[in-house]
């Protein structure tokens, strides 16, 4: 005799699965709710555009950190996106099933598994320790390297799905390979490459660990990429652990802005991508 029937066991299991799903979903809703709740109250034009107030006095904003994150992301994209696209082209069109290609592919995959703080340490040892100066350049290098595997993987995958008929048609017409690659295959794969680059940009916008000991922080407007530069991410960390109520409130405001930007990029990429490739 069974203690409980198979059907009531099924009901118990559904209840357990719903509870476990709740354990995953509730924290996310909670995070989003607490960021919106705590962040909205400090949002204002002044908050978004002005320099931080001197320590101890209230007011001021996070303008320099917003500009700093943008500058560092743009320079990092200038390094990471071209290298990522070229590596992706190499993997897809020139070395797809060669030994060299699979070696490069293994390296790219391993690079995406290297903790961000270790990539930050690399930039620190290479640039900060060598020149004995905290600089935005080191942060740019670290974030740029972090973008490479993301962009390369997106490029390779979206170029691989382009039908071989097109490549063969191009060859039959006597078109040189670099033209087939750039004008035909890459232009077909454009959407996927752009999505990959945007997602990589969103990803590095939230990266904090590699910036702590490279770009450091600053209470002034950025004066050059070779200087310490304030970023939104480091501002959230510094202000959140300061314990000073006004700074903690500003950290929530900065978190709201960061999360909005990161989620907006992701949602945009996914909806645009679906329209283009989903067919419906």
């Amino acid at each position, binding site marked *: 005799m069974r203690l409980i029937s198979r059907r009531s066991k099924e009901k118990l299991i559904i209840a357990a699965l719903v509870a*476990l799903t709740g354990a995953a979903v509730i924290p996310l809703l909670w995070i989003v709710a607490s960021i919106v709740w705590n962040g909205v109250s400090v949002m204002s034009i002044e908050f978004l555009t002005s320099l931080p107030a001197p320590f101890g006095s209230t007011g001021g904003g996070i303008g320099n950190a917003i500009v700093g994150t943008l500058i560092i992301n743009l320079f990092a994209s200038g390094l990471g996106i071209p290298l990522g696209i070229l590596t992706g082209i190499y993997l897809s069109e020139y070395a797809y099933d060669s030994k060299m290609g699979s070696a490069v592919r293994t390296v790219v995959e391993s690079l995406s598994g290297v903790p961000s703080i270790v990539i930050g340490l690399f930039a620190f040892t290479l640039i900060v320790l060598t020149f004995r100066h905290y600089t935005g350049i080191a942060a740019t290098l670290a974030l740029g390297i972090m973008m490479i595997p993301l962009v390369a993987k997106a490029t390779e995958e979206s170029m691989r799905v382009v039908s071989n008929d097109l490549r063969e048609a191009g060859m039959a017409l006597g078109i040189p390979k670099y033209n087939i690659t750039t004008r035909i295959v890459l232009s077909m794969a454009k959407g996927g490459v752009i999505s990959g680059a945007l997602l990589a940009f969103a990803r590095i916008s939230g990266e*904090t660990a590699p910036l702590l000991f490279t770009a450091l922080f600053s209470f002034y407007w950025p004066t050059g990429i070779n200087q310490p530069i304030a970023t939104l991410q480091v501002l959230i960390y510094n202000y959140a652990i300061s314990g000073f109520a006004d700074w903690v409130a500003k950290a929530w405001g900065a978190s709201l802005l960061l*999360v909005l930007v990161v989620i907006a990029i992701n949602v945009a990429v996914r909806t645009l991508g679906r329209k283009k490739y989903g067919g419906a």
Partner: protein
Amino acid sequence: MNKKSIFFKDSAFKYLVGGASMVVVGFFAMIFVMLAIRSYPSIVNDPLMVFGSTWDVNSGIFGGLPAIMGTLASSAIAVAFAIPISLGMSVFFTEYAPRRVRAALSVVIDIMATIPSVIFGIWGLWIIAPLVKNYVQEPIIGSIGFIPLFSGPAYGLSLFLASLVLTFMIVPIISSLTISLLSSTPAELREAMISLGATRWEVVRHVALPFSKLGIFAAIILALGRALGETMAVTMVIGNSFMWPFSSVSLFSPASTITSKIASELYEAVDMLHVSSLIELGLILLVITLTVNFSARLIITRISRRGATQ
């Protein structure tokens, strides 16, 4: 256009993409080389010091064992928490959830994977830490605090809190991989079970889960790799005490990890030996995470080969 210039452009492009790939490989190799060079002073000073149990900046003693053990412990606990949650959500998603719920859940999983680590950190520090202190740590310490693993006092910021926050960060990794594995269970196997009168759970238990066992294992290993290297959230909630587990083995004590130590000390380290010891810890972390990720990749490659031959 004459033939020569086409040939030239064609090979120039080939060298351009090949060269870019070599630059990427070069960066990867340089990470090891630079970290090894910069940790040389600490290795020469005392090769075994990094495995010592005392970290005292003022006396120049840099033993990294508490940080290494904190890294391993927080990640292992987080994985142990995350396995039932992720598997439960994945089974619910693939077998039971109506279409609309499924669409909502996939948005939730995507967003969870997107939220930056520092955001998990500020949430853990200001929202979760006080609740964990009052409603988890204090009751447990009050009732079974005589067991060293659960002894007090309740600080809030602790190894337990770090593991908890890490759990939420790795759930989307395990879930998204498990969902795609479970939904690729061959339909014939499912239908055969259903035609024998099996309930949905029996189909999951006897067909879907055994079929994707190996892949789920790989997903768990990948998540472990991610947890080991996670920095910001852990640094903000673990309390950064350099004594655990040598002063108290309690899960509720503040502890440290390799990443929290680097994040909280490197920018103000002036002593060369201090800097070099932190970099050596980073090198150890790199070796651990690469080994873990590489084993997960090996399993995944084996699964995709199996899929190709069947």
